[in-house]
C-alpha cells in the first residue's frame, strides 16, 4: 500500500505541474487509491502542496505529503498521466507496469526550443495584427517575441521566480517597442506591446483560478487568483519602469 501510494502521489504531483485543475487531481488520486484497495482516502490539494491519507484494510494508515514548487503547462504529459490513472482504476496493473508507464508519461516528447521561440514570435505578431496593428508593427512584434523568449530563458536561469520573469519579460518587450518607435520603424508602441503582452498575460492562470473557486476548491482558487493578479501587476510594473526611464533618457 505504501509503495502504491507513492505512485499515486507522483502521478498527482505531475498532473498538477502540467496544468490540471485541483478538482481533477483530487478525484484521480482518490480513485487510484480505491483501486489499490484503500478503505478510505482523504485528499487535500492546493496548488503548492498535497496531503493524502489512505486507510488500508488492516487498519493501517499511511500519510504522504508533497510540496509543489513548479508549474510547467504540458498538456501531452497531462493527457498521458490522465490515461494512466484511468488504466490503474480499470485494470490491475502491477507495480512494475505502473512505474514503466509513469516514466514514459513524464519523459514525453516536448517541442524543441527553437519552435517555442517561433511560437512566441508568431503569437506576438498574430495578436498585434488581431488588435489592429499594421504589417510593419506585426513584424516588429514578431522580432520582439523571439527576444522575449530568450529573456525568459535568461531570467529563469538566473532567478527561478515566476513573477520576476514576467516583470523582466515585460521590461524587454516594452523597451524594445519604445526603441522601435525611436528608430522610426513604427509610429506608436501600443499594438506592439499588446501583441507581446498576450504571451505573458495570466489569462490561463485566471481562468483556472476561477474554475477552482467555483468548483469549491476555494483556497487553491484564491492562491491562483492572487498569483494571476501579481503577474498582471508585474507586467504593468515592467511597462511603467520603461516608460519612466524612457522619459528620463529620451
Amino acid at each position, binding site marked *: 500500500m505504501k509503495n502504491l501510494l507513492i505512485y499515486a502521489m507522483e502521478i498527482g504531483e505531475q498532473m498538477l505541474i502540467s496544468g*490540471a485543475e485541483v478538482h481533477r487531481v483530487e478525484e484521480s488520486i482518490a480513485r487510484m487509491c480505491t483501486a489499490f484497495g484503500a478503505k478510505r482516502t482523504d485528499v487535500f490539494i492546493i496548488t503548492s502542496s498535497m496531503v493524502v491519507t489512505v486507510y488500508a484494510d488492516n487498519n493501517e494508515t499511511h500519510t504522504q505529503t508533497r510540496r509543489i514548487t513548479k508549474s510547467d*503547462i504540458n498538456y501531452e504529459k497531462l*493527457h498521458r498521466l*490522465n*490515461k494512466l490513472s484511468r488504466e490503474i482504476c480499470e485494470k490491475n496493473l502491477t507495480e512494475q507496469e505502473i512505474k514503466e508507464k509513469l516514466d514514459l508519461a513524464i519523459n514525453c516528447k516536448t517541442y524543441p526550443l527553437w519552435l517555442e521561440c517561433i511560437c512566441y514570435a508568431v503569437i506576438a505578431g498574430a495578436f498585434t495584427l488581431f488588435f489592429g496593428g499594421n504589417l510593419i508593427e506585426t513584424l516588429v512584434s514578431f522580432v520582439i517575441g523571439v527576444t522575449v523568449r530568450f529573456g525568459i530563458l535568461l531570467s529563469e536561469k538566473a532567478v527561478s521566480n515566476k513573477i520576476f520573469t514576467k516583470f523582466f519579460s515585460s521590461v524587454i518587450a516594452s523597451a524594445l517597442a519604445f526603441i522601435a518607435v525611436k528608430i522610426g520603424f513604427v509610429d506608436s508602441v501600443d499594438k506592439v506591446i499588446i501583441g507581446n503582452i*498576450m504571451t505573458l498575460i495570466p*489569462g*490561463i492562470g485566471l481562468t483556472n483560478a476561477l474554475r477552482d473557486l467555483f468548483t469549491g476548491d476555494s483556497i487553491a482558487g484564491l492562491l491562483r487568483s492572487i498569483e494571476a493578479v501579481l503577474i*498582471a501587476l508585474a507586467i504593468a510594473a515592467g511597462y511603467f519602469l520603461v516608460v519612466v526611464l524612457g522619459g528620463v533618457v529620451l
Partner: protein
Amino acid sequence: MTHSEIIQILSGFIGSIGFAFLFNIRGWRLVVTAFGGFLSWALFCVLNNFISSEPVNYFIVALVISVYAEIMARLLKTPTTTFITTALIPLIPGSSLYYTMAYAFQSNSESFLERGVYTLQLSSALALGIIIATTLARIHSKK
C-alpha cells in the same frame, strides 16, 4: 463580415495554434484546439451583428466553446482544460488590460477606471461562461 474581422479571425486562429504548440498539444488534440480558436472569434464576429454588448458576447462564446471542449474532451479522452484554455485565447482581453495600465500611468483616472472595470467585466463574462458549461457537464457525468 468585414475585412478587419477576417484578419482578426485568422490571426486569432494562428495565435491559438501558437499557444497549442507552447503547451505541447499533439495529434488530433492539436486539430481540435486550432479549430476551437478559429470558432471562438468567428462566433464572436457573427454575434456582434446581433448583440451590441461585448461582455454578453463573451459570455455566449465562452459557453459555446466550453461545451465544444467538454464534448471533444470526452471523445478524445483527455482533460477538458486542454481545449478550454487554448481555444479561448483570442478572447483574453489583452488590449483592454494594456490600455488600463497605460491610463493608470498617464494618471487619467477616469479612463483608467472605465477601462479597468471593462476588463473585469470581460474576464468575468468569460469565466462565467466556462463555469456554467463545466458545472452542467459535471451534473451530466454524475448521473
